[in-house]
């Protein structure tokens, strides 16, 4: 009988080149950050060529595409505007995500230095650095993200679970009034108007 701890002898050892090719993630403490640098100035050109068609020349967003800048102080508002500047806690996430998954449709096409430059430009668009700023692996952790302290670890266990235990069966409330109707808003996809799409087709 095989013993789990001893393994099955399946797979083969990963080579250093293979791990390096896929292990691109960067952590908040800078782990994984490659050596390199890029300026706001270079980033502006690169952003214009690679990113602005969706995200706008000033990272303000085009149409429904994500806004990367703006929204400062809106998080407690009715419609918060969550951007890199107003919401993201760590610069590492921006570098990591842009480097691996952007531009949308042509991911993993940005070099290390290009990524530093674009990240520097997005910081500039959020008024977090001056226009002569150069971002590098050396000064990366010095950049302060405005919403770094804006997150708490899931606290449902103390704030919700003790409360949501009431299984009232009778006389649970006095009256029932309609306070909102989806049909009034009328934003459900439909074929001809009236009912929801599936009923329409049936």
């Amino acid at each position, binding site marked *: 009988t095989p013993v789990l701890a001893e*393994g*099955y002898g*399946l*797979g083969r*050892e*990963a080579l250093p080149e*293979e*791990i390096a090719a896929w*292990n691109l*993630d960067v952590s908040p403490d800078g782990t994984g950050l490659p050596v390199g640098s890029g300026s706001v100035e270079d980033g502006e050109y690169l952003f214009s060529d690679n990113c602005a068609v969706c995200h706008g020349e000033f990272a303000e967003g085009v149409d*429904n595409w994500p806004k990367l800048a703006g929204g400062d102080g809106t*998080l*407690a508002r009715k419609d918060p505007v*969550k951007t890199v500047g107003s*919401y*993201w*806690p*760590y610069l*590492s*996430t921006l570098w*990591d*995500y842009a480097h691996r*998954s952007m531009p*949308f*449709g042509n*991911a*993993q096409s940005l070099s290390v230095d290009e990524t530093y430059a674009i990240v520097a430009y997005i910081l500039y668009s959020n008024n977090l650095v001056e226009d002569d700023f150069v971002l590098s692996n050396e000064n990366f952790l010095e950049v302060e993200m405005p919403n770094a302290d804006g*997150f708490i670890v*899931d606290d*449902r266990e103390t*704030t919700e679970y003790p*409360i*949501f*235990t*009431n*299984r*009232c*069966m*009778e006389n*649970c*409330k006095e*009256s*029932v009034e*309609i*306070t909102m*109707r*989806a*049909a009034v*808003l009328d*934003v*459900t996809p439909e074929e*001809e108007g*009236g*009912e*929801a*799409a*599936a*009923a329409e*087709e*049936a």
Partner: protein
Amino acid sequence: MDEKERAITPATDSGLALSRRGFLRAGAAAGAMAAGTGAALAEGTPDPLITEVQPWAQGWGDGVDATPYGLPIRFEGDVVRRNVGWLTADVISSINFTPIHALDGTITPAGCAFERHHSGAIELAKEDYRLMIHGLVDKPLVFTYADLERFPRVNRTYFLECAANTGMEWAGAQLNGAQFTHGMIHNMEYSGVTLRTLLEEAGVKPEGKWIYVEGADASSNGRSIPLEKALDDCLVAFKANGEALRKEHGYPVRLCVPGWEGNMWVKWLRRIEVTENAVESREETSKYTDTLEDGTSRKWTWVMDAKSVVTSPSPQAPIKHGKGPLVITGLAWSGRGAITAVDVSIDGGKTWTEARLAAPGQDKALTRFYLDIEWDGSEMFLQSRATDETGYVQPTKNQLREIRGENSVYHNNCIQTWWVKANGEAENVEVS
């Protein structure tokens, strides 16, 4: 009649092929909803579907070579995924919805099980597939697909619910149909290898506290998962509902993270890195964090809490048969264990009746419930309320909003209300 129309027209040449909408209008005009298709005939008149020999009772059906891999019969053409154009900027990083209003039981047919991609559904052949485990391990490993099939295998059934399911409903009743309000969910029987088996093959070092998992697609969808969960019940799955995963569900290999938000169920899984700390990737900072009323946000809200919805009657599944026996049915589930009870209210939550579970609740899987009533034709405010094995009782939307406000986007597990009107139509509403 074009192909699409033909696919959705009822199965008869008898002149009774009214659309549901047309039928509802006709029924309402007649002031009576008691007419089923058969009952439309005058009493005492023989039914020609019985008295006349029908073509299917005389000639041939299809041969066994007609359909090597079949699709549903054309009359079920409305049981399909649907998307909502205005929800996202494009259809590549987007969502569609399972037609839960039309399904029964608990297993979701893979062909209409919802999709959520961040850079589209990629095509990845088994021969091109590689899975890497590295980081804080004794021996970093690369597996081929064939390697994975040689590990001891398990079968488990779990729901996968998108963290954003019902998210459009935070500020009010918005989308009119269970498919749209609750359809970012599916429930499949998975076959695969436990993640624990693979991690033990590589040998996790004592400093390893987290794993970071990512997919082979351009978005990567990287997420951090605490090691305890990884070693508990996560699966590296390659079959769902008996067959290979569908392309759009991660073919050839996906991660299953039972009870936890769907975003973490990384598709086209290519890499597992054992780390000391969470990576805090885009999908766990910018997204899948839940903003509270004061502007702070919860992160790492992994578990999907107990939830339920009445799937029929519902806006897409109105009552067409008039007064009398009515089957109220729906789904319940919890990421914290098995469903132990579902209560149904027809008066907007004033009184509740315990529904019948079709089968005992299963751990972190969909549970089907039924309540058979005698409908007197009056309007109803239909609600369902799930209880799970921890004693957690599904809250109302107002209870959730009191704690979270309206901006948390994700994790809306509130009680849903359908206003069933006297004509049998139903609407998504909020009630006091």
